[in-house]
């Protein structure tokens, strides 16, 4: 296997696995505050699925030569990379709707594209992940519809959350890189360009939001039926860089602090299940 291919895959897959965990954490914050028992159980099941996905995806990176304990310890030490959207705080149940529907929707678009990725063990894991994500999509849409057709207070809470999550989700797909300049496309890791995925996501989700009477905070957002593409205000890419490369956000610092604590306190469980001995985490 060419070492470039191996390294590109490891980096990409490790970031994916890290993101499954860091994506579960903002939602986990709302399990205790869910508005009904059914929502609480559904959210807990979704969080469990995401952690399960992390298990599967870490294993794929491990199969390429990257040890799992190193990946997890890098993540909780703040060295591991994960998607921009999971660096943000949550403020209301409206955020849970947005993460479950819009952000997860973005992940579903990119994960569907990964069903054609060139590394077969990754494809096999993605089949299971994509099947479980389709259930998460229903959960997300159910919450969105309940809030959008609820009281004025519920509607406004949802609109306010959408206003905050729009730009981070547009950022999620990355800058527009032409296929011929993208090594990820050259090596078959990605089968769509960033812009293709972003357009696909806008096409799938913006009409549904408009249907519910939810506006997006971009006055230029419009579909051009002749060009068959969406026009939009170019996202602020410096803001994306600041989030993923700058000082960790408060939300990230807090979430990683708790992960470090749990990792130390629960090291004995790892040892029993895996038979490995963990050195005391720094």
């Amino acid at each position: 296997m060419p070492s470039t291919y191996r390294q590109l895959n490891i980096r990409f897959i490790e970031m994916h696995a890290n993101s499954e965990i860091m994506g579960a954490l903002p939602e986990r914050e709302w399990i205790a505050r869910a508005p009904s028992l059914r929502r609480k159980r559904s959210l807990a099941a979704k969080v469990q699925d995401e952690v399960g996905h992390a298990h599967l995806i870490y294993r794929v990176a491990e199969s390429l030569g990257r040890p799992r304990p190193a990946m997890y310890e890098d993540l909780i030490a703040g060295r591991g990379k994960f998607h921009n959207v999971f660096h943000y705080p949550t403020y209301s149940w409206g955020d849970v709707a947005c993460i479950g529907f819009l952000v997860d929707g973005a992940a579903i678009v990119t994960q569907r594209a990964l069903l054609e990725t060139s590394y077969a063990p990754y494809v096999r894991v993605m089949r299971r992940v994509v099947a479980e994500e389709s259930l998460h999509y229903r959960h997300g849409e159910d919450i969105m519809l309940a809030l959008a057709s609820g009281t004025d207070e519920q509607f406004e809470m949802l609109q306010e959350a959408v206003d905050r999550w729009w730009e981070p989700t547009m950022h999620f797909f990355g800058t527009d890189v032409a296929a011929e300049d993208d090594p990820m496309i050259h090596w078959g890791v990605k089968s769509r360009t960033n812009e293709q995925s972003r357009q696909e996501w806008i096409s799938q989700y913006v009409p549904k939001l408009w249907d519910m009477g939810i506006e997006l905070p971009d006055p230029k957002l419009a579909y051009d039926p002749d060009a068959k593409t969406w026009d939009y205000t170019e996202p602020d890419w410096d803001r994306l860089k600041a989030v993923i490369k700058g000082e960790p956000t408060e939300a990230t610092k807090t979430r990683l602090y708790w992960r470090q604590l749990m990792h130390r306190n629960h090291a004995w469980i790892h040892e029993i299940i895996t038979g490995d001995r963990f050195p005391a985490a720094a």
Partner: protein
Amino acid sequence: MEHVGNLHAADHETALLIARETHFRHHEGVDYAVVRSDQLHRLEDPSLLERRTDISYRLQTGYSGFREKREAARAAADARGRGHLRQRPVPGSDSKGAS
């Protein structure tokens, strides 16, 4: 890896040879493994895989009535004066707005 069958052999080298002859004569696959049956540890209590409580929130069937819910959301949007949003052009609408 998929379970494709079983065979009788004195040792694992012979088992690998026999398996190639009995199960992979026509190149069905790129890799295979053999394991002695007493080394295969199966689930003893299959009831561990059964469901004991209502977990419809984990299943597609637990989420239904989306057509009615979407209609209710459209009606609520109209009541809020936001019905015009769905009249905007979207893919597949021939500039006539989402259906």
